[in-house]
């Protein structure tokens, strides 16, 4: 998808930065979990305040290993893809999926317990904002401008008329 009007350099730089920052965050979260053998999402899932039966099922004995492994893999993969600029549109979708799962386990709905958070939220929280950021990354791909995909595309080189 291409914007109907060309983006200014500053706009492109901003989009690249947004992609890199979200990728940075995903990757760091993934690396910390990947290298911490005792880490598990069980506590987060079991303390879910919405769709409890679904999240309790995810936390069950038979599921938790798969859930943890998939979560770490997805975090790492989304992070790497966004930073390197490779398959960013697919990575954005996976990232949005993950963030929505985190969001719905502990949504900041009115009158829902908020648990331990570092700020104050009403319906919108940082998970949802990050998901929205990924939607922008999805809609405004930049990996052909800054990223691995630049290597693999047929570059369109403007030429002077002869």
């Amino acid at each position, binding site marked *: 998808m291409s914007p109907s009007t060309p983006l200014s350099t500053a706009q492109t730089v901003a989009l690249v930065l947004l992609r890199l920052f979200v990728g940075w965050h995903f990757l760091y979260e993934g690396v910390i979990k990947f290298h911490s053998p005792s880490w598990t999402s*069980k506590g987060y899932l079991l303390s879910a305040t919405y769709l409890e039966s679904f999240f309790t099922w995810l936390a069950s004995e038979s599921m938790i290993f798969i859930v943890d492994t998939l979560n770490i893999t997805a975090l790492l993969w989304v*992070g790497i893809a966004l930073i390197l600029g490779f398959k960013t549109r697919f990575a954005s979708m996976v990232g949005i999926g993950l963030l929505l799962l985190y969001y719905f386990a502990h949504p900041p709905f009115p009158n829902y317990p908020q648990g331990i958070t570092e700020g104050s939220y009403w319906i919108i929280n940082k998970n949802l904002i990050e998901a929205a950021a990924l939607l922008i990354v999805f809609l405004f791909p930049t990996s052909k401008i800054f990223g691995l995909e630049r290597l693999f595309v047929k570059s369109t080189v403007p030429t002077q008329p002869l």
Partner: protein
Amino acid sequence: MATDKRLFSGFSRRDVLKSLAGLPILGTVWAAGLNTVNQTQLEKHYLLEKLNIKASPPPPSGPMSGEPLRVGLIGFGIRGEQLMRALGFATPEWMEEMAKASEKDPNDTRLADFQAQENLNVKLTAICDIFDVRAEKAVQAFNRNGNSCTRYKTYQDLINSGQVDAIIIATPDHWHAPMSIAAIEAGVHAYVEKPMTHSIAETYTLRDAVRRNPKSVFAVGHQHRQTLSFLTAQDAIAKNTLGHVSLVVTNTNRNDDNGAWQYPIHPDASPETIDWNAFLGNAPLVEFNPEHFFRWRKWWAYGSGLSGDLLTHDYDRINCVLNMGIPKYVTASGGVYTHRDGRNVPDVMQVNMDFPDFSTGSSQENGKEKGMSLVYSATLGNQFDRGTVLMGHDASMELGNTLTIYADPRSSQYKEMITEGKIDPSVPIYQYDPSANGVDAVTSATAKYFANKGLLWTYRDGKRVDSTFLHLREWLSCIRNGGAPSCGIAEGFEEAITAHMAGLSYKTGRKIEWNPSTEQIMALPGEDLDAILLDNSVVV
């Protein structure tokens, strides 16, 4: 503007940079993450190695093989039913109730836990309860699945029936010692609920009986001795992690009728269904009174209030970690402040137990530190959980089913590590949670109170296990395979004397002193301490 598509042509250094610039970012973020994890783990390992606390389970009790042991139960009340479940015998009514509870709340695994419990290879052959309804309930429930259970009208009949190898006593306090003594003298093993005794005199008589009959295995029901965190706490103390412990605080906080011993009175209770004289025993003669029968913990004549019912648990929890024995001095105060319903045992009570010669160890110059106070603070009018804390010069340890140790900012032992920033006094230097990833469904405030103290369950290999089950198993193993129960007559003696000193101090308003060389509670000339302790007059 004309365009010309040329594959990979015109690739400038700038293009390559823009294509691969993500790589160094990727490497940097990954390295930073790895570094953070390593740093945290290094610090954790450094501390853990330094502290070297072993979170090891107690040695498992021996095999349950051989001929089934024949067990009799005296007292099929609230505690009696719990003990029978720990032994492997549940009533159909309970099973039904628990099935419903687990349907309602999938985290409520009480039925599944019971069904998964190891078979202890015992027969419940005899039951004695002086309330017909309860006795019949037991007979109905336990004459099935190959078990045959006979009702005996009196405890003497049960003990001397020849049908029991061992008995479990879950009666009001004033029957604990007489029944234990009768069993031990008859060569029958006995497991008695706490407090071990109701009067001072019978504490000595029971100890003599147990000492004279070493073949009968005697155990007191302080099941928290099986809890994993207490064994870890013992190791932390042995390694001088806390330094000199000068103060230990333990508490009871309850705020409901059940927790205040306002148990339901059965509608079928009458002089026809209850053997009233058998209930009274050595207690003062009064007319039939169902409230006394069902809520006996509220009167000194049959129970011993906070000091006998709940201080004993907290005292023994600390005694099993510190092994400090009987306090030299006990002072107590309190009153009936939250349930003015005719009871005469206090429902708010503070007990200070002093051990002037005791020390857990020291990290300072020799001779500077000695002596410790154990404070038990209780109210039945508030359930704020204050926790149990052992407070040492070097660290404080919060003790429950989980165990947490915080370094003290002014510690001598950790001074350097605190200065270097390796220890942050606001962050635990050690935390032990045997439930790890588990979740527990706690159904009531009183159950939560007990669970936090390790009285309901503990963990083995991360699995929840009923601590009463483990405690009974240990007693059965001592009967079958030899060995001494973790809470035997010596520990029971210390628990009972301490509770009686607290009761005496409350009643006399005086500091009560223990003479360790004569092993006597010191009395004023002509004073009958038991008469004071058991005095059942009602406070107004």
